[in-house]
């Protein structure tokens, strides 16, 4: 199986350690996305897998072979670079063929491979062109062509879409997904864009300060973030964070902040945490807007409503902190004007320890 396994992978530059021991098992044919803010060590990790950075400590196995000390060219991996790194002096066909020529493949093999890859990526009409004469999307495709032509065991993508405009990015994202479905090659993809991570990944690895924060499927991470960092990183607009204290109520635990009270889920860990300071994670999408007539609503001061068409973003403030609500517009435009608060189902609130930021155990939203 052509999986990739990282065990305790460390990267240090002298005394400065930037990746603090990564453990990750990438299954065969899986599409794994490493995501995190810049400087979180995701690119460094990818480059260690590629062999472009020496591994300071830990073990890296590709397809069951220990490759820590194997040269990049002998790891049987291919990489798509952020700036594509297309050779400007070579035309598209020669760019794609570069690796095969270096490896001294026969002329016939090279010609047929280039033709096949050109066909797969829709590059056939452009094979004679130089990179400078291509559009951004076409360059991106050539970069992928150069990777797939070698039929590697693993594809590595280093922020491949970040140089494209928004529209093209959406389009190429879909193409990468389709290509992965068709070729079924194990892929590791690095991005700082959580939307890309959500749409592309079988599993997402959220990284922060050289450590893995959480690994899981996109929905898993979206619904059940293990800490406030993951909660704040995934989702757009991000999860609202509200400081509160757990008190006992008639129907189990209740979160209390200011004059407001919200019913929480009847989970053991919450029931046992009465009196504890917590942070409530409330997804902008999970709340139901309410006007003055609704009882038990949490009241907010509405600041601004951005109407985006099918939905609207309500920018409000709650206890002086910004609070964003995302809501449907169709059929409730007249309601939006009178909004003064919201309600939310108890199980959709995520409760984090206020000190550590870690999610209190036992909470789970089913997918």
């Amino acid at each position, binding site marked *: 199986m052509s999986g990739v396994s990282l065990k305790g992978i460390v990267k240090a530059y002298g005394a400065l350690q930037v990746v603090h021991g990564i453990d990750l098992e990438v299954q065969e044919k899986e599409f794994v996305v490493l995501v995190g803010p810049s400087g979180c060590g995701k690119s460094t990790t990818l480059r260690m897998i*590629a062999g472009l950075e020496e591994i300071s400590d830990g073990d890296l196995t590709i397809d069951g072979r220990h490759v820590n000390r194997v040269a990049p060219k002998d790891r049987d991996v291919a990489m798509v670079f952020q700036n594509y790194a297309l050779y400007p002096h070579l035309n598209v066909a020669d760019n794609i063929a570069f690796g095969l020529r270096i490896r001294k493949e026969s002329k016939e093999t090279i010609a047929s491979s280039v033709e096949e890859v050109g066909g797969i990526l829709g590059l056939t009409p452009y094979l004679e062109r130089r990179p400078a004469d291509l559009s951004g999307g076409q360059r991106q495709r050539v970069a992928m062509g150069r990777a797939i032509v070698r039929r590697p065991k693993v594809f590595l993508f280093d922020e491949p879409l970040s140089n494209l405009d928004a529209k093209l990015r959406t389009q190429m994202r879909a193409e990468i997904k389709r290509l992965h479905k068709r070729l079924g090659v194990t892929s590791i993809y690095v991005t700082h864009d959580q939307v890309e991570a959500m749409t592309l990944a079988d599993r997402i690895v959220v990284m922060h300060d050289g450590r893995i924060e959480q690994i899981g499927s996109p929905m898993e991470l979206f619904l059940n973030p293990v800490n406030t960092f993951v909660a704040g990183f995934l989702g757009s607009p991000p999860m609202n964070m509200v400081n509160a204290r757990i008190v006992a109520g008639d129907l189990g635990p209740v979160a209390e902040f200011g004059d407001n009270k919200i019913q929480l889920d009847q989970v053991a860990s919450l029931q046992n945490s009465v009196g504890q300071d917590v942070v409530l994670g409330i997804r902008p999408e999970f709340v139901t807007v309410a006007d003055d007539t609704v009882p038990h609503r949490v009241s907010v001061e509405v600041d601004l409503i951005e109407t985006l068409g099918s939905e609207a973003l309500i920018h409000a403030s709650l206890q002086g902190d910004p609070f964003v609500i995302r809501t449907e517009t169709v059929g409730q435009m007249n309601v939006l004007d009178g909004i003064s608060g919201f309600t939310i189902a108890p199980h959709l609130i995520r409760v984090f320890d206020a000190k550590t930021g870690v999610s209190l155990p036992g909470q789970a939203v089913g997918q």
Partner: protein
Amino acid sequence: MANMNLYSRGDKLFVIVNMVLLGLFTISTLYPFIYIASLSMSTGFEARAGNVILTPVGFTLEAYKQVLSEPQFWISYRNTFIYTIGGVLMSLAFIIPGAYALSRPQLYGRRFWNLAVAFTMWFNAGLIPFFLNMRDLGLLDSYFGIIIGFAVNGFNIILLRNFFEAIPQSFEEAARMDGANEFQVLWKVYMPLSKPAIATVALFCIVSRWNGFFWAMVLLQDEDKIPLQVYLRHVIVELSDDEEFATTLLTSAYSFETVSAAIIVCSIIPILLIYPFLQKYFSKGILLGGVKE
């Protein structure tokens, strides 16, 4: 901005005065060349009498005949070609791989190596130790000595290194992932990408080789090995002091002055031929190498 009609009267005057002054400077730069060219095509008698001002007086190519019939002229011309071509190839063979290695971040001791190169630009042992060293190496009076002895130059290395550094590292990485070794990365990717910088360095080398005379004069005694510039110096500088000799050379057809001028013209021509390329690249090159760590 370029529309003159939008200018005030003062601005128009300023632009015109500026152009006239610049024109004068340009003419004064050009004039000596025209003067020499005219001199070379004038008769010896007119040249001697100081009658040549702008155009040839009593047009004749006798001086050129005289120059071209001198075997030493051809020997030294040939030698200059050997030193120039050999020297440029030798320089590039050292400088390109050296500059590439110095530009790679993964090179251990990169700062130290770079400093070792830069230091030679700041501190120079001087004429005597260099000469004695060449003598000890047995490189006096040798083609090879001239070609190898001046092959590397810190400025050119740093210029090319800066250019290589400006090429995104991902080109090297992509090529290495494609299976290329460092030599292939340099040969198939970085060199094609650096044509302008390499051309600049090559042109710098060509010019300094073509024009170099001091060390050739010091290191070469054998007349069969001297380059054009040394021969030129012999004729136009040393012999000019010899008024008696100059007078013996005077015939109605050519004089010492016209012959000197003709040799000058002959030796400038190759530089003029590559000058369009020089102009294309040197400003880039200067800026590349000039201001960067």
